[in-house]
C-alpha cells in the first residue's frame, strides 16, 4: 500500500527509523507498546539478610529494582499469581554480599575514601548470579548480570555490610516502570517547509538563521543569493520565522501527514531493532487473542 520503512541511524542502543504511509493510530499503538508492554526481567523481591548501611531496606530494594538486567526475557515465563517461591523457569536469582573494611596500609593523614577503605562503594558489578535448580544446564553459556557495571547502589563505611538475595521476574512496563525496556521511544512527524515566494539576499540570510542549521541552504544563482530548503528533517519547528514581520507571510510550516520519524533508545537489555519487532508481534498477539475469544464464545 505504498508503505515503506527506512532505517536512518543505528547505533548500539539507539535506532532511528522512518515509517511512511502509516496511520497515526497504528504508529501510536507501536509507541505505547514499546513503552509499556514489551516484557523484561527486573528485580522484584529482595530478601534482606543483613543491611547495616545507612541506606534503608526499602530504598535499597527500590534502587535494585531499577537496575536493568541483561537477560533475554523471551527465555523466561511469567510468574504465576500467588506463587511465592519462584521456579527456575520464571526467576533469576542474584546475590549482593559486600562488607566494607578499613585499609591498614593507608597513610595517616589521608582523607581520600578510596585509600582509606576497601569496598566502600557498592556498584552493580558486585551483583552475582546464583543459578536456581537446573538453570546451569538450561543456560550453559549465558552470563546474567546487570547491563552496566558502574551503577552506584550504595556507599558504605567500615563495619557496614549488605547481604541480600534478589529474585528477578518477568514483567511489563504497565505494571511498574522498571520493566520498561526503552529509555524512551518517541516519534515525530516530518516537517514540511515551503517557501511561498523566492527569497533573496538579506532576507535569505535571515531566513537561514531562523531555522536550525542545515535546513535552509543559500545558493548563488546569477550572482544573487537565493534561499532553498535543503533538509527539512533537521528542523526542530521553533517557529522563529514568524517573529519577523518581513518573513512571516513568505513561509508555510506544516507537517507531512503520514511520515513518522521514530526514535527508539534501549536500556541495553535487548537491541532496539529486536524491541520493535517484539512490539509488532505483541500487537498481533492481542488481535489474535480477541479473535480466539470471538470464535470460542458463542454470541447470541
Amino acid at each position, binding site marked *: *500500500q505504498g508503505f515503506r520503512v527506512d*532505517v536512518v541511524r543505528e547505533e548500539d542502543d539507539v535506532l532511528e527509523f522512518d*515509517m511512511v504511509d502509516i496511520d497515526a493510530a497504528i504508529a501510536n*499503538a507501536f509507541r505505547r*507498546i514499546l513503552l509499556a508492554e514489551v516484557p523484561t526481567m527486573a528485580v522484584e523481591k529482595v530478601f534482606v539478610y543483613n543491611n547495616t548501611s545507612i541506606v534503608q531496606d526499602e530504598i535499597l530494594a527500590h534502587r535494585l529494582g531499577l537496575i536493568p538486567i541483561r537477560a533475554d526475557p523471551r527465555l523466561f515465563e511469567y510468574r504465576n499469581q500467588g506463587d511465592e517461591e519462584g521456579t527456575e523457569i520464571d526467576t533469576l536469582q542474584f546475590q549482593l554480599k559486600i562488607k566494607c573494611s578499613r585499609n591498614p596500609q593507608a597513610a595517616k593523614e589521608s582523607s581520600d575514601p578510596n585509600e582509606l577503605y576497601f569496598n566502600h562503594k557498592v556498584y552493580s558489578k558486585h551483583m552475582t548470579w546464583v543459578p536456581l535448580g537446573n538453570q546451569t544446564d538450561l543456560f550453559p553459556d549465558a552470563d546474567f548480570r546487570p547491563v552496566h557495571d558502574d551503577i552506584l547502589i550504595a556507599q558504605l563505611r567500615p563495619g557496614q555490610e549488605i547481604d541480600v538475595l534478589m529474585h528477578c521476574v518477568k514483567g511489563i512496563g504497565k505494571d511498574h516502570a522498571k520493566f520498561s525496556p526503552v529509555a524512551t521511544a518517541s516519534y515525530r512527524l516530518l516537517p514540511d517547509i515551503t517557501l511561498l515566494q523566492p527569497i533573496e539576499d538579506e532576507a535569505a540570510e535571515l531566513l537561514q538563521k531562523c531555522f536550525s542549521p542545515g535546513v535552509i541552504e543559500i545558493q548563488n544563482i546569477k550572482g544573487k543569493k537565493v534561499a532553498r530548503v535543503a533538509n527539512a528533517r533537521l528542523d526542530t519547528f521553533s517557529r522563529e520565522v514568524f517573529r519577523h514581520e518581513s518573513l512571516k507571510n513568505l513561509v508555510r510550516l506544516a507537517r507531512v501527514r503520514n511520515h513518522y520519524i521514530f526514535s527508539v533508545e534501549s536500556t541495553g537489555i535487548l537491541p532496539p531493532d529486536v524491541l520493535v519487532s517484539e512490539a509488532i508481534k505483541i*500487537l*498481533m498477539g492481542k488481535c*489474535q487473542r480477541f479473535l480466539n475469544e470471538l470464535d470460542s*464464545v458463542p454470541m447470541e
Partner: protein
Amino acid sequence: VQADGTDGNCVTFVLHDEDHTLGNSLRYMVMKNPDVEFCGYCITHPSESKINFRIQTRGALPAIEPFRKGLNDLMGVCQHVLNTFEVRLLPEHAQR
C-alpha cells in the same frame, strides 16, 4: 469479551485488559469498512482497564463481522510492517 445490544446490527463489546493501544488502532481499521455506519470506543473509567467498543452496521450485516474483519486486517497490517521492517534491517545485520 462481552457483548450486548438491541439487535444484531449494533453491538457494544466490552474488552477487558485493553486501553487506547488496541482501541484506537482497531477503531481505525473498522472505520475503513464501508458497511460500518458507526464505530467508536471509550474507556469507562481510567482506573478500570476495560474499553467499550461499539459497532453499528447499516443493512442487515451482524456487527460481529466488521469486528472480526477489523481484527484480521489489523493483524495483516502488523505482519506487513514486521516483514518490511525485517527486510530493511537485513543488510545491517549481515554487516555486523
